């Protein structure tokens, strides 16, 4: 544990060392971006539970840990090390080790002309002119210390550019691997995706850890959706149970865009996923779909800030949570409808299953409406596995463990069904299956022979 002053000194030391040598250190605009962000971080520091946006999530375990920047560890890894982590049937896979692009571990198969996919650091060095108009332009470092910190330490991550009218059928899959080196380490991957007008593509961020040890991954993705583009984004968090993962997806939506954000939080000790779309052009649609599954002492926080800034836009948020053990889940869905955003149609739904007495969910819908002709609804439920449904399955010969797992899968499938059929959905389905199997088994052994048939039903809470 360290004091606040030591904490700042530790970051200052890392930053001074970093900015001297980081890619693009000689570019004045980038230097300024980093320095401003670091200054902002020093000013605001890590949030506390007194901040309304962080009321349910205590990040003092991150604040008090002396992290050093994770080393570039890519030469130590081989294809074999990643074998179990990869998604199957996806020809384009970029691998990042502690945030640094690892070309030798990546698969760069078959993408149409008009798509540029690679390392942000490389692009900064070779073609900064393409980056400058976008990088850091939409992310608000004033909102959040983590965004400021990421921007201060930004260097590598994925850079994707999709030319006007290009249809990318294969998903662009980004695998982020954390490796430990004993001491607590941090990485700040930064992704920039620019999809021009009338383009279509799917992106996946998948976070895994290969070693045990304390790691802090603080990632930011800026997704610029040009007019009429159709984009899907997946965030998969499956790091080990000591990992800290803070992620922010900032989506800038143009006119008549259709953007879908899926997030699946299963791993990590302390996880916060921010999804922040701004519907800036008329007629934009945004679907935010999420599933979080926690057990033991995991803390999984889903924070959404949906800004309706133009008329005739629609947003949907659907989040399902399954929590067992002492796990703590958070759903904080904030919708802001700006003055001119008439005919907004916004809806949010959060459903939760609590499998143990000690599991906890905080769910907070928050609507701020400054326009007068809008439709906004929200609802949340908290329940347990229904005794009647469990008995029904068992009375047909299905054993209790399998019946529980079936019911959990059924609950999770609501989220799965919002994903398009294809290799990514298959990958996600496999991960959910595996995770729920573990949860169902853990519940079984914890329950022992006691016959839990509480039959408590869904409880509507708003």
């Amino acid at each position, binding site marked *: 544990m360290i004091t606040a002053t030591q904490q700042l000194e530790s970051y200052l030391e890392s930053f001074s060392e970093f900015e001297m040598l980081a890619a693009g250190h000689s570019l004045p605009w980038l230097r300024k971006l980093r320095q401003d962000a670091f200054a902002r971080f020093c000013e605001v520091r890590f949030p506390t539970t007194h901040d309304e946006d962080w009321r349910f999530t205590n990040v003092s375990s991150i604040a008090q840990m002396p992290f050093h920047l994770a080393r570039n560890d890519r030469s130590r890894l081989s294809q074999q090390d990643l074998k179990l982590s990869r998604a199957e049937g996806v020809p384009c896979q970029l691998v990042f080790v502690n945030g640094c692009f690892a070309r030798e571990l990546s698969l760069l198969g078959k993408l149409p002309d008009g798509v540029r996919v690679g390392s942000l650091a490389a692009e900064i060095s070779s073609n900064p002119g393409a980056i400058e108009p976008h990088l850091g332009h939409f992310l608000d470092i004033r909102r959040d210390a983590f965004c400021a910190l990421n921007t201060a330490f930004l260097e590598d991550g994925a850079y994707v550019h999709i030319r006007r009218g290009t249809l990318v059928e294969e998903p662009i899959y980004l695998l982020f691997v954390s490796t430990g080196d004993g001491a607590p380490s941090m990485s700040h991957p930064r992704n920039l995706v620019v999809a021009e007008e009338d383009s279509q593509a799917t992106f996946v961020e998948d976070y895994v850890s290969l070693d045990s040890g304390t790691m802090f991954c603080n990632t930011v993705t800026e997704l610029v959706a040009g007019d009429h583009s159709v984009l899907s984004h997946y965030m998969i968090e499956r790091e080990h149970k000591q990992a800290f993962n803070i992620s922010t997806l900032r989506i800038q939506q143009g006119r008549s865009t259709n953007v879908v954000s899926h997030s699946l939080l299963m791993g990590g000790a302390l996880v916060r996923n921010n999804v922040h779309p701004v519907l800036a052009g008329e007629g934009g649609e945004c679907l935010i779909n999420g599933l979080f599954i926690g057990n033991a002492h995991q803390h999984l926080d889903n924070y959404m800030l949906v800004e309706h800034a133009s008329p005739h836009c629609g947003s949907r948020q659907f989040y399902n949570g399954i929590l067992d053990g002492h796990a703590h889940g958070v759903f904080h869905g904030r919708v802001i409808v700006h003055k001119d955003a008439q005919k907004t149609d916004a809806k949010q739904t959060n459903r939760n299953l609590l499998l143990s007495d000690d599991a906890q969910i905080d769910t907070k819908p928050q609507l701020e409406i400054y326009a007068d002709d809008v439709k906004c609804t929200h609802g949340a439920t908290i329940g347990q596995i229904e005794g009647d449904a469990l008995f*029904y*399955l068992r*009375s047909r*010969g*299905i*054993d209790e463990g399998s019946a529980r797992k079936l019911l959990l*899968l059924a609950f999770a499938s*609501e989220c799965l069904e919002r994903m398009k059929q294809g290799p990514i959905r298959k990958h996600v389905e496999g991960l959910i299956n595996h995770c729920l199997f573990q949860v169902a088994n853990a519940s079984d052994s914890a329950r022992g022979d006691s016959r839990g048939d509480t039959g408590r039903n869904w409880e509507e809470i708003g």
Partner: protein
Amino acid sequence: MSLLEIKNLHVSVDKHEILKGVDLKVNAGEVHSIMGPNGSGKSTLAQVLARRETYAVSAGEVSYNGKDLLAMKPEEAACEGIFMAFQYPVEIPGISNAYFLRSALNAIRKHRGLDEIDAIDFLPMFREKLKLLDMDEKLMNRSVNEGFSGGEKKRNEILQMAVLEPKLAILDETDSGLDIDALKIVAQGVDAMRNADRAIVVVTHYQRLLNYIVPNFVHVLLDGRIVRSGGPDLALELEEKGYGAMEAEARHATTA
């Protein structure tokens, strides 16, 4: 040896005694009807036989196929051949009917040492049973009972029974809420499954269903006890006189 033998069964729910000493013997090949007014304990009896764990058995024994039924979990009882058609079938969003039914069939087959049946082999058999109950195949890709009408839910129960081929089927008020056309289809589905190896217990409030599934024996359950047993005529007598007369008789018998 009877397939099912219930001796002096006492059951309570929340310390309130519902069944107060039930005795019943059911042999393979027989159809028994248990009739009684609301609150007499009919559904409790059905649920205990299906091994619902919220019911506490305070005394008595139930032997099924020579085994202690009360020691079995619900899934064990099902694998041993007991099937209950629910009075209120449960909706389970997110699990398709076809998947659910195949999982159930395979759990039971596994218990009996048989190979699992795959989706391709399952389908022809399944289609035949669907036809028997005049059910649309499309319903089977939908979630279990979700959005089904009352009649569709009850037909779905009998469909499950037809697929799982139990040794002892218990129908818990399967007739309630059915119009006459749906009742006929359900009853014909059940009647088609009568055979020398299978016993069926029909729990009902009214006699109408028994026009289509004619029982070998009728038992009247009143206030947690079987007060009279007889042939199919007993059901007709009940229909005519109502439970009131029978209750008065029963009171008279206990005071005498």
